[in-house]
């Protein structure tokens, strides 16, 4: 249905009322920035979850009074468990040094910490295929060994992350609804206003024999362009903010999390823009329903 003439007339309409359209696109961009930002957070939490879920490791905290033989027997037992790749003993002394190496500037003050602050551990590397239940089974058995103080499988962290992600997804869904409302309201009222201003134009078109489709076409196209441009503007703004924030955080953030923050994947961006265009067209159609019949 979109002919060259429709596109030309839509362009003419948008150029004549560019202020109105720019305002509408800006409002839409603000709404889309919120949605995009929450999607960005979810994307990165997902990546984090992925990274940690498949980190494939556990730390066995040993009691201070554990003897070298005890430790060795635990180590040997662990190595016999299927899925365990490697077991490495880290003494409290060593842990303190490692920590200090990561936090050089504060090393002096940390050196004052008591040795007990860094218990000896057995760092267990397991194959990534090892399931959560297998890992927690292993942890439960280890817990019963007398020389073992505690076992950290980092599952609690993944669970916490999962909860955070489902929270993020719920927030995104809510924001998507807000965006839906915003697009319908903003595009709807912009088109209604444009229609009001071009009242004579519509009347003349109908009087010289234009079909409804011919009259409505440009408005639907204008709505769709507004929606798409709003989404594009939001993505651009978000990308700029993302670059700035990442530039600031870089080193610390990456070592802390063990991965690079990433921007929205291309399909999410395409999805945002397409849904903007579709919603815009839909909103325009909605506001054209009661088009004056002359």
């Amino acid at each position, binding site marked *: 249905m979109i002919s060259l003439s429709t596109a030309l007339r839509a362009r003419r309409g948008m150029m004549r009322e560019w202020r109105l359209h720019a305002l509408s696109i800006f409002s839409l961009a603000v709404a889309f920035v919120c949605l995009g930002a929450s999607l960005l957070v979810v994307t990165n939490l997902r990546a984090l979850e992925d990274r940690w879920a498949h980190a494939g490791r556990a730390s066995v905290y040993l009691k201070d009074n554990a003897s070298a033989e005890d430790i060795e027997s635990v180590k040997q037992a662990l190595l016999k468990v299927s899925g365990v790749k490697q077991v490495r003993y880290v003494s409290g002394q060593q842990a303190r040094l490692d920590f200090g190496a990561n936090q050089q500037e504060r090393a002096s003050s940390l050196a004052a910490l008591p040795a007990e602050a860094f218990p000896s551990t057995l760092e267990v590397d397991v194959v990534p295929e090892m399931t959560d239940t297998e890992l927690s089974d292993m942890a439960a058995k280890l817990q019963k060994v007398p020389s073992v103080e505690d076992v950290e499988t980092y599952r609690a962290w993944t669970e916490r992350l999962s909860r955070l992600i489902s929270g993020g997804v719920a927030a995104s869904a809510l924001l998507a609804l807000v965006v839906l409302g915003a697009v319908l309201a903003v595009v709807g009222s912009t088109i209604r206003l444009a229609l009001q201003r071009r009242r004579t134009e519509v009347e*003349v078109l109908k*009087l*010289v*024999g234009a*079909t409804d489709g011919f009259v409505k076409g440009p408005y639907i196209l204008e709505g769709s362009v507004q929606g798409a441009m709003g989404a594009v503007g939001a993505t651009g703004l978000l990308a700029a903010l993302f670059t700035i924030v990442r530039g600031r955080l870089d080193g610390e953030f990456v070592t802390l999390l063990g991965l690079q923050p990433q921007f929205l994947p291309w399909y999410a961006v395409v999805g945002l823009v397409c849904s903007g265009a579709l919603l815009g067209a839909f909103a325009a159609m909605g506001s054209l329903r009661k088009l004056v019949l002359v």
Partner: protein
Amino acid sequence: MSRFDGPSSFRPALRAGARFSREAKDRPILTFESVYKSYRSGSPVLRGVHLTIERGEFVFVTGSSGAGKSTLLRLLYRSETVDDGRILFLGKDIARLKDDAIPFLRRNIGVVFQDFKLVPAWSVYENVAVALEVLGLPARLIRTRVGEALERVGLAGRGNDLAGVLSGGEQQRVATARAIVGEPALILADEPTGNLDPQLAIDILGLFEEVHEAGTTVVFATHDRTLLEVRPRRVVVLDEGKALDVPQGITIESDDHYRLPN
């Protein structure tokens, strides 16, 4: 000056006319059968209008202000609908056209509206071209045809001016150009000379006569008596809600009344 006839002449009216039956050619182009129309109950404007207009006729419709000339024309392009009676356009009842058929009816009728109906923000060119754009004609054809139409109404070279800044008479001529540019089968002109000086009025009348010569049916609503006297033409008077044919050789008595010879 361009010719509106000839084998290569573009006639959307006849193309769309294919929708009508063959024998429509021999039927009157317009038939009013006891048409009633009122805007407010109790004061009908048209009270049983009977009128037949043949293909290729040139008819003046006259009558005092408020007699219902514009109303009569509005019923033809379905801006209003009859309360009772029928209006047949090439044998088809206009009132029974479905909504999506109305655009095609309007493409067969060129109208010069009493209030022009121009888009002030558009250029003269755009205002005329719109009648061809709705037909989906190629841009190049539109350009040449709009150029011709503007030349015919004496506005050659004014295409880029905004319609809103033109004088009343100039706007009226733009409206006329838009009505004739599509070469419709029927032209309805509602006071198309109302804002023109006498000489220009006669020129524009000449333009409609020229279009008529090419085979177009013209219904010309006016209360400008001088125009009625330029040439002997069929004159229909709207009076008391009825249409009466004025016999040739009428004498015009007072300002508002035609005395029919009896």
